[in-house]
C-alpha cells in the first residue's frame, strides 16, 4: 500500500527520485562513447527523461518536507547512506548488452509503478507519473527491442546478453519487494516475454541482494556519487 504518513510519503518520493537520478547519471556515462551515434542520442534522451522525472520528484519531496530544501539540496547534498535507490540502477554500465538488460529490468518495473501512481489522489504525483508513464512505455520498447536483437543475434551478442541477465538477475527481487504484488506479476510478464523471444535463460541461482531501499548499497554507488556531487561539494550552493 502507498505510505500515508508524511515522512513515509517523502521517503517514497525520494526513493523513486533517487532511482531516476542514479540511472540518468549512469546512462550519461555513455555520452560520446556509445556503439553508434543513434544509440548515443537515444541513451542521452532516455537519461534526460529520467533526470527530468527525478527533478520533479525532488522538488515535490522538498515542498512536502517544508524545510526549504530544493531539488539540488536533495539530489546532491545527501550522503550515500541516505540514498534509497534500487541496487539495480547503480550497477556499472558494463557493455551495451549489460546496459540494455538493466534498462529492460527497470522499465518493466516502472511500467506498472507509473500506471498505479498516475491514479494517485495526490495531484502533483499523479501528474508526474502520468508524464513518466508515456516516457517509460517508449523506453521499454527501446530496451526490449535491443535485448531481443542481442539475445537472438550472433553467438557473441547472445553470450553478452546472457552474461548480463546472469549478472543482474540478483538485483531483481528488490524491484518489487516494497510494492504491490501486482507489480511483480506485471514485471514477470513483461520481462518473461522479452527474454523468451530473445532466447535468454533466467539463472537458476536463487541468490538475491537487496538493501538499496534502506540505504545499504553496493560498492558502486559511492564512486558514482563522488563524481556527481563533486561540483556541489567543492562549491556549495553553486548554480549554473
Amino acid at each position, binding site marked *: 500500500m502507498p505510505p500515508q504518513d508524511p515522512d513515509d510519503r517523502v521517503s517514497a518520493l525520494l526513493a523513486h527520485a533517487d532511482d531516476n537520478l542514479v540511472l540518468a547519471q549512469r546512462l550519461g556515462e555513455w555520452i560520446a562513447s556509445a556503439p553508434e551515434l543513434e544509440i548515443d542520442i537515444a541513451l542521452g534522451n532516455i537519461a534526460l*527523461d529520467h533526470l527530468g522525472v527525478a527533478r520533479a520528484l525532488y522538488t515535490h519531496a522538498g515542498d512536502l518536507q517544508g524545510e526549504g530544501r530544493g531539488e539540488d539540496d536533495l539530489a546532491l547534498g545527501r550522503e550515500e547512506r541516505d540514498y534509497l535507490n534500487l541496487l539495480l540502477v547503480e550497477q556499472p554500465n558494463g557493455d551495451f548488452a549489460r546496459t540494455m538488460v538493466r534498462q529492460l529490468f527497470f522499465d518493466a518495473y516502472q511500467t506498472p509503478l507509473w500506471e498505479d501512481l498516475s491514479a494517485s489522489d495526490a495531484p502533483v504525483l499523479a501528474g508526474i507519473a502520468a508524464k513518466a508513464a508515456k516516457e517509460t512505455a517508449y523506453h521499454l520498447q527501446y530496451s526490449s527491442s535491443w535485448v531481443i536483437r542481442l539475445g537472438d543475434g550472433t553467438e557473441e551478442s547472445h553470450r553478452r546478453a546472457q552474461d548480463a541477465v546472469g549478472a543482474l538477475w540478483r538485483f531483481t527481487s528488490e524491484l518489487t519487494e516494497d510494492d504491490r504484488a501486482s507489480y511483480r506479476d506485471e514485471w514477470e510478464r513483461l520481462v518473461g516475454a522479452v527474454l523468451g523471444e530473445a532466447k535468454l535463460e533466467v539463472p537458476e541461482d536463487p541468490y538475491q541482494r537487496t538493501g538499496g531501499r534502506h540505504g545499504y548499497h553496493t560498492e558502486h554507488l559511492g564512486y558514482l556519487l563522488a563524481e556527481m556531487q563533486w561540483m556541489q561539494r567543492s562549491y556549495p550552493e553553486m548554480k549554473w
Partner: protein
Amino acid sequence: MVKAGTLDISAVTEAVESVVDPEIPVLTIDELGILRSVADEDGRVVVTITPTYSGCPAMRQIEDDIVAAVRRRGVHDVEVRTTYSPAWTTDWISEEGHRKLAEFGIAPPTALQEVVCPRCAADSPRLVARFGSTACKALMVCSSCGEPFDYFKSH
C-alpha cells in the same frame, strides 16, 4: 513601468503567447500547447506552463524568455510556474501548429503508420532512429525522395 492596479493582462498574455520554442522556432509556446495560463495575482503576472517531456532541456530557456517577454511589457513582477497535471499531450498542438511544423520540415505528430514526408508528401517513410535531435522528435527518412526528416513523436 506600469503601476500596481493598471496591469493590462490581455497585452501581457499576448506577449507571452508569442514566445517561441527555442528548439522549434516556428512554433509559439501557445501553439505547442505548453502554455496553460496567464493570470494577474494582485499585480503579479503568474504564467503556468507544462513540459512536453519530463527532461526537456528547453524549459529553462522558455521560462527565461517568458520573463523577458513580460518585462518588455513593463511588468517586472512575474513568476513562471510549472505544472505536471494534466500531463501534456501532442493533442494540444494546435491546427496552426501542425501546419507550421510541416512547413518547417518536421512531420507533425500522428500515428507512425500515417506519417508522410514533409517535403514530397510520399507515404511510408522509414524510421531511422526512435530518438532524434530533441526529446520530442524521432528521425525518419523518406522512401521516395530519400530526404531524412524529423518526426514529432505522438505522445
